[in-house]
């Protein structure tokens, strides 16, 4: 092994106001950004706050801004982000900061529900499980967005969210699109109404940052385009 190498890491301290604080951290093989943050809390400054749970990219609670880019930190290798031995870690953008690197994700989830991003059942536990052709177009469309881990990375990447606090954001709208395509869903009109209001899908400018940064390679922009299409079609239908 080469001789011990250090990196310098600037970490956000404080809430909505605060400042970056710099730490020297030893470089290791296979180190992730989350490992760096945890090391600082465990060995350098025990007062540092952050959030994680699964540590393998499943729970979506560890997202932060790394060098100005939103990322899941538990699956981001340090080598990928280190620039000249330095990196900067901040709390996820577009959400209120609780402390240091931990944000309040409630607005993100409130909007998820506001977008009607939940199943409206037509059947009960007493009914048999429906036969559904996995290759059918609606099902394929749903599958494209289903592996969302609600990490809010897309929400942080979107400048429309930044400029418009009402905007429901890419993840919530993508979920609404999945629900809309579900043949078993009872309330499709409610979904279209929910995504057509002041904060609805029509605010999206197809900036595409959501799709570029989603750690699971999902494409909320496409889902939102789907909602725009359906609402537009519906716009004329309801008028005639």
């Amino acid at each position, binding site marked *: 092994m080469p001789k011990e190498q250090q990196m310098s890491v600037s970490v956000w301290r404080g809430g909505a106001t605060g400042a970056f604080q710099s730490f020297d951290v030893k470089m290791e093989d296979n180190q992730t950004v989350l490992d760096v943050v945890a090391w600082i809390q465990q060995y350098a400054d025990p007062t540092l706050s952050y959030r994680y749970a699964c540590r393998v990219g499943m729970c979506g609670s560890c997202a932060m801004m790394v060098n100005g*880019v939103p990322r899941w930190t538990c699956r981001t290798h340090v080598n990928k982000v280190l620039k000249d031995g330095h990196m900067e870690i901040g709390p996820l953008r577009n959400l209120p900061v609780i402390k240091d690197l931990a944000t309040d994700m409630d607005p993100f989830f409130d909007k998820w529900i506001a977008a009607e991003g939940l199943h409206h059942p037509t059947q009960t536990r007493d009914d048999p499980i429906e036969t559904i052709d996995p290759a059918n177009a609606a099902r394929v469309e749903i599958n494209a967005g289903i592996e969302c881990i609600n990490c809010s990375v897309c929400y*942080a990447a979107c*400048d429309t969210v930044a400029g418009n606090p009402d905007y429901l954001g890419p993840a919530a709208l993508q979920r609404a699109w999945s629900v809309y395509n579900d043949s078993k869903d009872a309330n499709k009109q409610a979904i279209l109404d929910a995504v057509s209001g002041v904060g609805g899908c029509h605010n999206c400018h*197809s900036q*595409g*940052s959501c799709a*570029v940064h989603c750690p699971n390679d999902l494409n909320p922009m*496409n889902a939102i*385009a789907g909602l725009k*299409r359906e609402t537009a079609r519906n716009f004329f239908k309801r008028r005639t």
Partner: protein
Amino acid sequence: MRHGHRTHTLWIAYLLHRISGVALALFLPAHFWVLSYALNAPQKLDGFLHWAETPIVKLAEFGLVFLLSVHMLGGLRLMALEFLPWTSGQKTAAASAVAASTFLAGIFLLRAI
């Protein structure tokens, strides 16, 4: 580094579209104002058109046509993206929109000089 999330084609296309839109919207009242002289004060319009012959204004006009075509093609690109269920090729569309507008505005400039 602080805004690393923006460095990709689609975002740049968005910004171009917005800037061109705003610029057009700002130019529009002036354009209307000048044209409205046509009837009640044609000499003023002529004076203006004369002034418009100067190279610097020519260049500005080139810019304007460029903006208009950037905005239009960008807008058409956007609507295609929204209404035609595309999955890929958006970057290409963004790039070709800019290329086509340069071409269009280029013709305009060449004819003008």
